[in-house]
């Protein structure tokens, strides 16, 4: 699958967050620019917007040369590209359990964190999601490391 096909496939998810007209234009521009990229693996998710209200749409994918991390909110676009050879660690961390508060109410913790460290320990791409996506993330991690090894 090339980049353009991926973006066409994910377009409906972008619409859920209610992006601005400008962000729709940016989405199409990015889609056109990654036409030649042969994607090895990818994942996407809708998450809470860290910068403000509403949701954010996060896409991560990689080819033989780069990791692309793109986050759309209603009004912003963050687009990070990381040289795949600069990756030095991929880290999958899970936390699943229950916590009781003082009233005896039970809260379920359900968190999976996938971190990709690059260019030194302080630079990290972090993806947080529910633990049900472990297999998917595990697959992506293995594919990423295999690609780097090549």
């Amino acid at each position, binding site marked *: 699958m090339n980049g353009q096909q991926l973006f066409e496939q994910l377009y*409906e998810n972008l619409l*859920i*967050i*209610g992006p601005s007209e400008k962000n729709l234009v940016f989405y199409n521009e990015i889609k056109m620019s990654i036409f030649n990229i042969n994607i090895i693996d990818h994942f996407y*998710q*809708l*998450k*809470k917007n860290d910068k403000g*209200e*509403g*949701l954010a749409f996060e896409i991560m994918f990689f080819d033989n040369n780069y990791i692309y991390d793109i986050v759309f909110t*209603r009004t912003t676009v963050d687009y990070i590209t990381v040289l795949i050879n600069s990756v030095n660690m991929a880290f999958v961390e899970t*936390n699943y359990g229950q*916590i009781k*508060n*003082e*009233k005896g*109410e039970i*809260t379920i*913790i*359900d*968190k999976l*964190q996938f971190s990709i460290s690059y260019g030194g320990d302080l630079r990290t791409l972090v993806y947080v*999601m*529910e633990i049900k996506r472990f297999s998917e993330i595990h697959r992506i991690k293995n594919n990423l490391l295999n690609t780097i090894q090549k």
Partner: protein
Amino acid sequence: MILLQATQENAPVWRTHLQDGNQIAQIIGTVMVVIYVIYTYKTFKQIKKQTDYQQDAYLKVENSIVKEINDQDPSIVTIIDNRIVQSKNSLTTKYLRKDIPQKMMEVLKPIFKFDDNLFEGNLFTVNLTNYGNAEVNLINLNVCLLVINSKEVAERKMLRERDTHNFKVKIEEIIGRNGGKIKIPIISTASFPTYTITITGEYYDVRNKKYHIHESVTSGQNEHFLKLP
């Protein structure tokens, strides 16, 4: 003889004037005394009021939306005295109303199929600051929550267009005088398509004196629940 006659004829006139003047002066005197008494009474009343104010609590109530309570997140750390310690969020969850957002999530989740975490958080929180001179030890809030579904969702999924929930929150916490602060999360708004939260209530200081909380209204929207997928 002529002079005596004139004096006898004129005497009653000036005497009358003098008597009139005296009466007017007495009236003015009385009025002045009354004004003085009223003024003094009002001054003392004002002084008492000021003194009372100096002993009163004054709670400022502000509303905000807090994204998450992170007290269960082990990855949040702070550095204290060059040591990394796990951060503890001071927000309490003991006043958090969970059943209404839970019901709303159960209704909307089959429709929108989002992950659970998108139905959680965005907590409507009251920020209470005591600028007065007496500690506050009890706050009673009357919360009116109006949840509105979009027309499209309501019509096509046979949901009610609007739901109203009234509930009371009894906050038993000590809020220190001269700037004591506390933040109380009341309800998660992440699972409400459109919502309006109205708050009124009263609070009591440690002398059991009652004060009113004026009405405040907070509205918001989660746009991703307005259009059907």
